[in-house]
């Protein structure tokens, strides 16, 4: 039965035998063949790629995008088209039975064949700017790549819909979500030169080999060259963050190109930038310099002012402003620019994390960055002097979904946060570990009271950096609300990822 022209659904439903969650198994007429499944399917058709005629050997649905046909649709939505791929067992890249026969009985998950032109869109997952050594990879569905930097002031999460891939297979449906931690440097080294990758790689297969604790990335290149990378991973606890863009009162959205041009004037070494709304509804980006007590040499201040018309959405009052780390923002920005997406910024009061989101039909990316709390804003107000606003009350969270990705809908989710390794079973509802204005020496007072001067800082010591540790507290017991997060006093880690 030809399925030409049929697209994927977002939901991935397991059909047939365990061990195979075919990405497009929706019609059910073809049971996913088990090991040694029967030969089914139509007679061999000429493969559009190599002109070879190979019979289909396996029964499940696979939909392969075809490179040439997709090329035209690069910018738009690649519409997958079935094509008869290699079918011989043991053939390179052979899927299905062939593959299984080769490696029997390992808890093996296969995630096959990122489309050729999806590869360039693979984000530098996630940018090493975050200084984080670790990415965690959640399988089977949807694939997510997440990372957090060592000072926990920045978190990034990219979710890939199954549609992103030509083929997506998970392990047994009974198996729980697989997560692993991979050294970012090694993962990035595989895709090091994007230009070369675009030119030579036809297909990329990523699979998880539980037995040898390896993530196997195979790049099938032109001229029969195949590069296999075995990246060892570690098991890790789940890395999830509590955040909800819908809760943020202020939003601004613009094409990434506009924001890219906006950060161009800033020196590459600049650490922090203040984003806010100035007079006349202009969006202002200003370099933020920490004041040093005895600095004789002041640094240059750069300010960029963009009119409201350049933004697709601007929902914020004049005078609101947040200060966040520019380096991390640049990472997401460069990805969004290359993928030609819009970037939306959801933010709240200073001190509360700001959420930067890019969205596509195939992937969803979120960066959550800590912002400086108000008392640390030394820079002059952007417009009105009235930056002090009432603190949002510490609201209780509604019960978040405790499963990771209970819903297949990747649009909105509230994810429970847990960082303890042993609490697989008991997932507590954390209260918001966010209380801006919390400082180590002082008792946590209500926010509105101490946005003025610093608390007693000892003379001679530099004021502590107030980037908040956003949302990672440790949950000691399910019923206790966690103590306030230990505020992060260190600057974003600059360790190269």
């Amino acid at each position, binding site marked *: 039965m030809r399925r030409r022209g049929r697209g994927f659904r977002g939901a991935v439903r397991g059909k047939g035998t365990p061990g195979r969650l075919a990405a497009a198994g929706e019609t059910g007429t073809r049971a996913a063949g088990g090991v040694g499944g029967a030969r089914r399917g139509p007679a061999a058709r000429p493969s559009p790629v190599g002109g070879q005629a190979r019979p289909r050997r396996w029964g499940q649905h696979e939909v392969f995008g075809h490179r040439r046909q997709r090329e035209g649709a690069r910018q738009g939505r690649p519409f997958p088209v079935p094509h008869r791929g290699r079918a011989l067992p043991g053939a390179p890249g052979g899927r299905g039975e062939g593959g299984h026969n080769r490696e029997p009985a390992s808890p093996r998950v296969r995630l096959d064949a990122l489309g050729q032109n999806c590869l360039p869109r693979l984000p530098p997952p996630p940018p090493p700017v975050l200084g984080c050594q670790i990415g965690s990879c959640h399988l089977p569905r949807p694939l997510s790549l997440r990372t957090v930097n060592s000072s926990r002031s920045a978190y990034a999460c990219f979710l890939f819909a199954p549609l992103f891939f030509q083929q997506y297979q998970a392990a047994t449906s009974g198996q729980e979500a697989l997560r692993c931690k991979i050294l970012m440097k090694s993962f990035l080294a595989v895709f090091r030169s994007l230009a070369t990758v675009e030119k030579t790689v036809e297909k990329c297969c990523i699979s998880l080999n539980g037995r040898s604790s390896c993530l196997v990335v195979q790049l099938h290149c032109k001229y029969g060259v195949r590069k296999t990378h075995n990246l060892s991973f570690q098991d890790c606890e789940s890395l999830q963050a509590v955040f909800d863009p819908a809760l943020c009162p202020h939003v601004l959205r613009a094409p990434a190109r506009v924001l890219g041009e906006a950060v161009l004037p800033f020196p590459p070494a600049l650490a922090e930038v203040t984003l806010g709304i100035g007079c006349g509804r202009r969006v202002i980006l200003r370099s933020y310099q920490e004041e040093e007590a005895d600095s004789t*040499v*002041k640094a*240059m*201040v*750069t*300010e*960029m002012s*963009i*009119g409201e*018309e350049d933004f697709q959405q601007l929902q914020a009052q004049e005078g609101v402003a947040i200060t966040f780390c520019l380096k991390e923002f640049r990472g997401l920005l460069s990805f969004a620019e290359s993928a030609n997406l819009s970037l939306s910024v959801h933010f709240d009061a200073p001190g509360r994390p700001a959420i930067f989101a890019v969205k596509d039909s195939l992937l969803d990316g979120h960066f959550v960055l800590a912002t400086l709390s108000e008392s640390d804003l030394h820079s002059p107000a952007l417009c009105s002097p009235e930056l002090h606003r009432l603190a949002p009350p510490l609201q209780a969270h509604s019960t978040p979904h405790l499963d990771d990705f209970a819903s297949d809908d990747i649009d909105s989710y509230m994810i429970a946060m847990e960082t303890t390794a042993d609490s697989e079973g008991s997932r507590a509802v954390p209260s918001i570990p966010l209380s801006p204005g919390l400082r180590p020496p002082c008792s946590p007072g209500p926010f509105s009271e101490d946005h003025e001067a610093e608390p007693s800082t000892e003379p001679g010591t530099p004021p502590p950096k107030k980037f908040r540790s956003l949302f990672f507290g440790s949950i000691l017991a399910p019923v206790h609300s966690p103590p306030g997060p230990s505020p992060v006093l260190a600057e974003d880690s600059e360790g190269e990822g």
Partner: protein
Amino acid sequence: MKFRAKIVDAACLNHFTRVSTMIAKLAKTCTLRISPEKLNFVLSDRVASGGENFFSEFQMEGISAENNAIYLDLTAENLSRALKTAQNARALKIKLTNKHFPCLTVSIELLSVSSSSRVVTHDIPVKVIPRKLWKDLQEPTIPDSDVSIYLPVLKTMKSIVEKMKNISNHLIMEANLSGELNLKIETELVCITTHFKDLGNPPPASEDASQERPPEQMAEVHVDIRKLLQFLAGQQVNPTRAVCNLVSNKIVHFDLLHEDVSLQYFIPALS
């Protein structure tokens, strides 16, 4: 004390940017001397000055009527970086302001696809130099030179001097009035000389000077090669006119003219 200037012409803007980039390559900090007719960049051994032709509007008010000039100390790189963002600018304004600290505010209005314009503002911190230090920063007098010669293409000279730098720090420059220039290094193991011929000499300032000196006689100066290289490295564009004046065993003086900008560079001889 006031200073405001504006540039609207794209070509002038590019030129100004190039000058500031050149300055940034030459020295870390530079002093800006603002006087009613011109703007001078003063670096510790060298002076570059630009005329008023750059600016469509130029207003300044010095410290007082008698001393109608402003001397500012700033980090050259800041200015060069600020101007780099002015690649596609509609207009550029420079102002002396005081925002918590005295600074030179460079305000650039960018061309934008949409109707609203984008404005980039750079506040470059500056230090105002008190009047008593002004005398150190006057334009140096050009000494009477023994030999005056036109320079070869600066790029060629730079690549040669770069290679020589690896061998020795001590460079001997000699030139004569027949249009010959030699660059020599001498070490125990090797002697390298590069000869430039047919360079031409500018007409002498006074007639007697040329008659006294035999045209073949070389005037030589021993200089530190790194200083020469620093000067050559900062030259991106070939100047309209480049003259080298040598005072035997004393000083080498380079006099460059890039359209409206003149740059004087002095390298003292090694003792």
